[in-house]
């Protein structure tokens, strides 16, 4: 019998990569669930091809799923992976540069035949290259496809279907390698294929075969073990950013006692919010409207808002651009509205399947005239939940459109989430009027300058509003210069006033007395946090600040930032938050920009910060 060493690990990064049809997303998700149930912290990120179905076996057709898990806090799916699963040559080719030195590669030999090598763009002699490139790694070449088919020889399935089960072999093997139970996946298989017994059987057979292979083969001499992560007690689930936004919106509606109206036009990477909500319309107070375009979406949301719904739009880049005129109207009418911009790489159509955070300035300044709109950003998949809830709160409490910025990386990434119960969520107050008012004035304001919200059906508050400048109070159209000046100031002041209701800015890592603050917003949180954590271990004088409230800023932000000697602002854009900080506080903040459609690389970021240490 072979001897197997059990190696302890702090954290592991696995990249599952194969052809779009190879089921890598499924394997990744299954391994992730298992990992979460095991009590590790984790973060995942899928990596879809740009095409719906790119030609089989090509680099364009590679679908990937990266999982980072460990026994301590995990903030990102990780830069380079420890383990690469490469189901074919193309998967190998497009991921080999992202494997750590001395990392492990598990390759399905069947995917490296001549045809596949050619499809991947290797020419004959480069076949050697694959092997030589791999000398820095522990390279396991296993004929997974063959083993899969063999393990199913007794089943009456055609070869293609047998072939398709190979992802389960990989999963089984990994379960062995990381000493896992198969139960969660077997359960999944039983549910998923409960209408097709033979396929159900095939999948669990292959899963076990993979596990068994690990146990019996002489190839593997190590197994890996990780401790549970220390996590706050509570109930957990895995969640992606888009699902978290959808949930946050439904719950915000519930806590405000308003129906949710979600108006949208499909666009990558925001569409999944629509898909998720669409499934909930029968059970919850949710109405979805797939409009004819983004203009109709935002305008219908304005109509719904006038009628007393929590009205929300979801979109991305080009769609956001189309909503700007409508948003100006919502500003002028002072109606509540939430716009979720799940950012992707621009300009124009750009790279729809790549991440970026380059719509911040557009969110702040994209409208004609002085049209201030609060902007908040989510910084992790699970944070999308509270961010969406908070965006709705601000919109409803302050009668204003609010822009919520997420991005593709948050949208598709996932992580464990300690979820709250319904009762733990705060109620959201609205300014709804439910009785008749003598001489009703639609622009009558409360002490926070917020106007009241009288909706059709309420007798005695009939009124007309519109996009022309209006007299404060009465709302009657006014071309008076002084009134206009006052209204411009007032609209801005009302939004600035939101700062009174948001938390003060905290330092997420490091001390107020540090020399350097690395200041980010949105999805860079994980990368910056990891980099700063490592630098702190190296005793560098750095701190990490992640800003969620981008407009208005928390009240203490200026004094907080001015305490540091150096401010570095890393962004996945060409420098946007840095502009705002420089302008507002006249701080010589230093931009760090990587615009590669990818999360920031931690190692590179660390290097950059070290320059100032």
């Amino acid at each position: 019998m072979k001897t197997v060493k059990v190696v302890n690990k702090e954290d592991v990064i696995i990249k599952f990569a194969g052809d779009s049809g190879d089921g890598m997303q499924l394997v990744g998700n299954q391994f992730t669930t298992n990992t979460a149930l095991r009590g590790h912290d984790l973060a995942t990120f899928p990596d879809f091809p740009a095409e719906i179905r790119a030609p089989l076996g090509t680099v364009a057709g590679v679908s990937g799923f990266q999982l980072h898990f460990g026994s301590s806090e995990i903030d990102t799916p990780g830069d380079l992976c420890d383990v690469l699963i490469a189901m074919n040559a193309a998967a190998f080719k497009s991921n080999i540069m992202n494997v750590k030195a001395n990392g492990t590669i598990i390759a399905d030999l069947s995917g490296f035949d001549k045809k596949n090598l050619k499809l991947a763009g290797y020419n004959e002699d480069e076949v050697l290259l694959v092997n030589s490139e791999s000398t820095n790694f522990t390279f396991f070449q296993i004929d997974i496809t063959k083993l899969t088919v063999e393990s199913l020889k007794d089943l009456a399935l055609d070869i293609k279907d047998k072939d398709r089960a190979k992802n389960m072999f990989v999963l089984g093997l990994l379960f062995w390698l990381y000493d896992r139970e198969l139960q969660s996946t077997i359960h999944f298989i039983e549910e998923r294929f409960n209408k097709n017994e033979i396929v159900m059987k095939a999948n669990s057979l292959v899963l076990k075969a993979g596990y068994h292979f690990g146990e019996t083969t002489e190839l593997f001499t190590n197994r890996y073990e990780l401790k549970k992560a220390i996590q706050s007690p509570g109930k957990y689930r895995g969640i992606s950013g888009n699902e978290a936004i959808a949930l946050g919106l439904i719950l915000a509606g519930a806590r405000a006692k308003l129906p949710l109206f979600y108006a949208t036009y499909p666009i990558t990477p925001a569409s999944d919010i629509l898909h998720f909500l669409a499934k909930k319309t029968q059970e919850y107070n949710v109405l979805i409207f797939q409009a004819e375009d983004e203009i109709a979406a935002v305008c219908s949301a304005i109509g719904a808002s006038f009628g007393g719904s929590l009205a929300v739009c979801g979109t991305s880049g080009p769609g956001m651009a189309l909503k700007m005129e409508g948003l100006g109207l919502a500003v002028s009418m002072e109606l509540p509205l939430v716009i979720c911009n799940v950012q992707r790489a621009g300009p124009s159509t750009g790279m729809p399947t790549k991440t970026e955070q380059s719509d911040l300035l557009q969110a702040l300044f994209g409208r004609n005239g002085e049209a201030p709109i609060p902007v908040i950003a989510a910084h992790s998949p699970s944070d999308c939940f509270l961010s969406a809830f908070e965006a709705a709160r601000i919109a409803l409490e302050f009668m204003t459109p609010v822009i919520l910025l997420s991005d593709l990386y948050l949208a598709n990434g996932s992580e464990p989430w300690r979820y709250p119960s319904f009762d733990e969520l705060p109620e959201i107050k609205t300014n709804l009027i439910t009785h008749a008012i003598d001489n009703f004035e639609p622009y009558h304001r409360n002490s926070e300058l917020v106007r009241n919200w009288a909706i059709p059906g309420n007798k005695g508050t009939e009124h007309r509003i519109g996009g022309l400048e209006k007299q404060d109070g009465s709302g009657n159209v006014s071309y008076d210069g002084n009134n206009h000046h006052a209204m411009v100031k007032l609209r801005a002041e009302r939004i600035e006033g939101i700062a009174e209701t948001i938390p003060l800015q905290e330092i997420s890592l490091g001390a107020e007395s540090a020399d350097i603050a690395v200041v980010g917003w949105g999805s860079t949180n994980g990368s910056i946090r990891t980099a700063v954590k490592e630098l702190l271990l190296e005793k560098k004088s750095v701190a990490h600040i992640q800003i969620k409230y981008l407009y208005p800023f928390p009240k203490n932000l200026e004094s907080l930032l001015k305490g540091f000697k150096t401010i570095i602002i890393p962004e996945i854009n060409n420098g946007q938050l840095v502009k705002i900080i420089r302008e507002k506080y006249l701080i010589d903040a230093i931009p760090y920009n990587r615009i590669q459609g990818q999360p920031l690389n931690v190692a590179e970021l660390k290097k950059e910060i070290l320059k100032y240490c």
Partner: protein
Amino acid sequence: MEESIIIPPLSSKDFESDQEIRWCPGCGDAAILKQVQNLLPSIGVPKEKIVFISGIGCSSRFPYYMNTYGMHTIHGRATAVATGLKLTRPDLNVWIVTGDGDALSIGGNHLIHLLRRDLNVNILLFNNQVYGLTKGQFSPTSEQHQITKSSPFGNTDRPFNPIALSLGAGASFIGRTIDREAKHLQEVLRSGQEHVGASFIEIYQNCHIFNDGAFEIFTNRTTRKSSVLFVEHDKPLIFGENNQLGIKLDGHQPVIVHINEQSSLNDLWIHDEKDKIKANILANFFENEDYPRPFGVLYKNSLQQEKSSIVGQKSIDSSVYNQLIAGKENWSVL
């Protein structure tokens, strides 16, 4: 929420807001406003349940003058705004007021989609065949060769045929009327209001500043009777100075006939609101100057039932929300 509503008898005055009317004196818009205000007391809907939504244009000032709920939105988007309101609040009585530029130029897409979706709203298209508010450029209903500020050598484009377009978009109610025919106007509006589904009503409206007399042929004493064809369901198509002309269908071809001379009353085309092919033929009159212009309810075919429940009124237990939050797979950390 549902209470038995006692509707106090309202008068047209109740629908007048306190805002001074800012249309040019004599503008057709004012005549239409009057008829809407005259109609509303009789439709059985309390004032607070009525909403007027407009885009931008002279005509789109309309909501300001109505003492109901109202929104003066942005150019071309009244239909889209109304869509969101009506979807979430089917209990409301929603009127869209729009112009030929607002509805058919910048707002064309939302209009055809609203008609396709057959939302139960009333669309009043004030067609003056010109851009009024921006001071006189041609619009998508301006006539070919029309001289305007932006077509000093004559408009080169053909106009839309709004009836054909709305039919093509799948409208379930199509009417045409004109500012100067107060009674007819009110009756067409009433039919539209009663129709369950999207009611598209084209209203010829004179802009006497930038396109005066565009519809004179339909209002002028000497030309009116031979240019206008008032259609009524189940009645034959008759027009002409002394009602001496009729329209007959020769196969699928309409033919103008002298009644008694060429044809008896019984042979005439009997208007059938529900017949889409006939509606198409009527729509095509637009392209041929030999035919009179049909006014009235040209097409009407209810596809749906009135919905009145407000969405989002399910009462949901917090445990159901907790299930949602927890998802299918979850675990506890102790």
